[in-house]
């Protein structure tokens, strides 16, 4: 298991390097000059050239890319923002909390709502409730987050005046952004819970449990839901990564000073270090979340743990055979 985790961590390195190269290159080839943009229309060509030199933009592409990668690897240095002049790492640390808070609360809202409604929908399959739930989920899945955000602002800020439309100064300010992202996540998690539950609910062990006289509630929660949990966990994990991406739009609409808004501001100002580093951090969080999920599977479903152990056992046997020794029949022997 430990070896598997180490292997996964090592495999993250090329993924993250790939992310850096792709994002940096996209920013590099995008039209516009960060120096000219920063200085505005009143800048003289000489001033632009001077600033380009100060920002290191007059160096060849490979030198700039190599310098950035080297800084990240050797000094954990994410560079200096072209727009603000501050250390990107400090700016990201100051903003990531907002984005994680948004993603966590939205995920919690989405998970609780999605799983509860998914169970209800599966148990009452083809009923009126099931149909209502299906419409609810499809609406969530197919609605773009920025549109939903604007509709919520229109309803709850403009018309009803109950909630603020932007900012992050207290609990009230978080309700609309989290509802926007949480509803979308709920839709997907609900669909996944429903289909996964329906698959399990018809299996023999459920009939056996019923024959033993277990109550329906216990059967659903202890047997069916547990069996159905793996795809649901996968969906939740995927949703968390999706929420980090979705935060880009939602933070911009609600003026939340998180990583997503920082990324958008960075793109608008051709701030290479800010954009590359923001995407790098989002990618890092995503791969770590996926790793944690993989580990979590083995605790939810013992068969997966056995697969890891089986893999280790198989290698041990192969090694023993090569060395001509005795083959162990059980890893504990």
């Amino acid at each position: 298991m430990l070896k598997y985790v180490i292997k996964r961590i090592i495999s993250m390195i090329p993924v993250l390097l790939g992310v850096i190269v792709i994002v940096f290159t996209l920013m590099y080839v995008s039209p516009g000059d960060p120096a000219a943009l920063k200085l505005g229309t009143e800048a003289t060509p000489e001033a632009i050239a001077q600033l380009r030199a100060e920002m290191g933009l007059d160096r060849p592409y490979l030198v700039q890319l190599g310098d950035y990668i080297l800084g990240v690897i050797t000094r954990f240095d994410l560079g200096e923002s072209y727009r603000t002049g501050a250390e990107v790492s400090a700016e990201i640390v100051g903003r990531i909390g907002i984005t994680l808070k948004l993603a966590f609360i939205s995920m919690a809202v989405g998970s609780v709502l999605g799983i509860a409604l998914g169970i209800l929908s599966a148990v009452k399959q083809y009923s009126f409730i099931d149909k209502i739930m299906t419409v609810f989920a499809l609406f969530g899945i197919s609605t773009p987050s920025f549109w939903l955000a604007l509709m919520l602002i229109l309803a709850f800020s403009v018309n009803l005046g109950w909630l603020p439309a932007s900012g992050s100064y207290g609990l009230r300010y978080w309700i609309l952004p989290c509802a926007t992202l949480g509803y979308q996540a709920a839709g997907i998690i609900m669909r996944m819970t429903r289909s996964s539950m329906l698959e399990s609910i018809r299996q023999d062990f459920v009939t056996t449990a019923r024959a033993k006289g277990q109550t329906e509630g216990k059967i659903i929660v202890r047997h069916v839901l547990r069996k159905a949990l793996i795809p649901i966990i996968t969906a939740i994990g995927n949703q968390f990564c999706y929420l980090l991406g979705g935060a880009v739009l939602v933070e911009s609409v609600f003026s939340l000073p998180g990583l997503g808004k920082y990324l958008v501001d960075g793109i608008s100002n051709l701030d290479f270090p800010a954009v590359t580093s923001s995407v790098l951090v989002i990618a890092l969080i995503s791969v770590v979340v996926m790793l944690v999920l993989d580990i979590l599977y083995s605790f939810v479903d013992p068969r997966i743990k056995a697969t890891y152990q089986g893999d280790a056992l198989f290698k041990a046997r192969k090694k023993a055979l090569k060395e001509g020794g005795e083959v162990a029949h059980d890893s504990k022997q």
Partner: protein
Amino acid sequence: MKTKRFLAMLLAVVTILGCLAGCASSNGGGGNNTLDPGADIGEIRSSKDTLIVGTPQDPANFDPNDNAIQMVWAFKKNIYETLVTLDNEGNIVPMLAESWEYSDDYMELTFHLRQGVIFHNGEEMTAEDVLFSYQRASEMANASPSFTMVDWDNTRIVDEYTIVIATKQVYMPQLNYLAFPLTAIFSKKAYEESGGDFFKAPIGTGPYKVANYISGDTYELEAHDQYWEEGKPYIQHVIFRVITEATNRTIELETGGVDLIYEAPASDIERLSSNEDVVVYRDTSLNTNFILFRCDHAPFDNQLLRQAVAYAVDIPTAIETAYKGTGVVATGWCSPSISGYADIGVYEQDLDKARELMAEAGYPDGFSCTLYTDTTAERRDLAEILQNQLGEIGIDCKVESMEPVAYQGMYARGEHDFMLYGLTITTAEGDKAFRWWHSENTMGQQFDAWSDPEYDALLDEAAATIDEDARNELYRQAQEMLKEACVVIPTVHREILSAASASLMGFENDLGYESPLLKNCYFA
């Protein structure tokens, strides 16, 4: 059982991490002082000792010599001040300098500084601070154009409260350049002692000083209690909230989240005007929007075709529709508030004349071209209206709308046939207004690649002409040349649109820099 326990623990850890992550947000990015995001702004505001401003632009940093965006100055002008400033009639009036005079040969400007001006750190401002601030500004890319003509060898401190700024030649616009917000004065001593961190806690002479901030979100200023203008500022705290979405600024004003918004969207002006709890402030700015031709490649290297376009379009109708009743139809090549403006008349729609010019230029059946615009709603609408109008005389005009970043890249490379753009003449005088078309434009980028040695000579002569009437006559001739060559077609003088709660008194738009001062504001 073990698995269940592990899962329970894992969930608990994830929840705690989530909460910690949320708490971590209280540490503002890039800032050492922070505003507690948990603080309920509504409660502070109820005391009416706090003014909350919704601004579209993140100031990004506190460096007075950085950033050429007006909305950034709107923030920084509360912290820093200049020696002189522009009033709303376009006149230069005293600020940190009480008076000034020219030497007999007009090569030197002597400033007598106001005594008893105290920086935010309690030190008094002297001529040393002025010289230090100017020298630093002259090395900064954004601020340096204000000092292009300064003769540093002869610029000197006379005494603690007197400084002489010398120019390399007679250069009358120099005084206006020293009213530019990018030439603001800051404390030399504090800068030298800061060890490079000066702009994290800047020391200026403005009516407000930086208290707390969350980078990119909220900037809290508090009154400078030793401010030189007695009794001001009236409001103790000002909080700037960065709200980039224009509609959200309107909603926040309507729902009481902010007291004042800058750059109110044109589409919301009618609604805001009908709200009795809100006052809309509309003033014509020093900005003029143009249709800019690229004169170094076909088709618009042909003056006749440029004039044909000018006669083909109905600018007043197009502006009325695209700008939704905001903005003033352009009457000349700069705003009428700028000294040097001449009322020489603009092109008016005359389709027969346009067709004649097309035929004379060898294009009787029309031609194809591309009109570029950025994604500003008004400009995009204007481009589409112009496209239709040009179609009437057979010009097949394609409209290309680009994101600001791509737009900047496009016009910097000179790829456009013609484009929509606006220029704000922040010095409120003719030299800057017309130097855009000087072939050695020292003020900024060339959009048009047009040059005429006679025009260049006129402008150079005007900048060195001491008599104002004689200078304005030269500028009038320059405008006649621009009209004849049809390098640009003026479209609209943009309006500065702000809106505030009806209880906010003393507010007015600042025409020159579009950066209103809040020191005069108070709640009724």
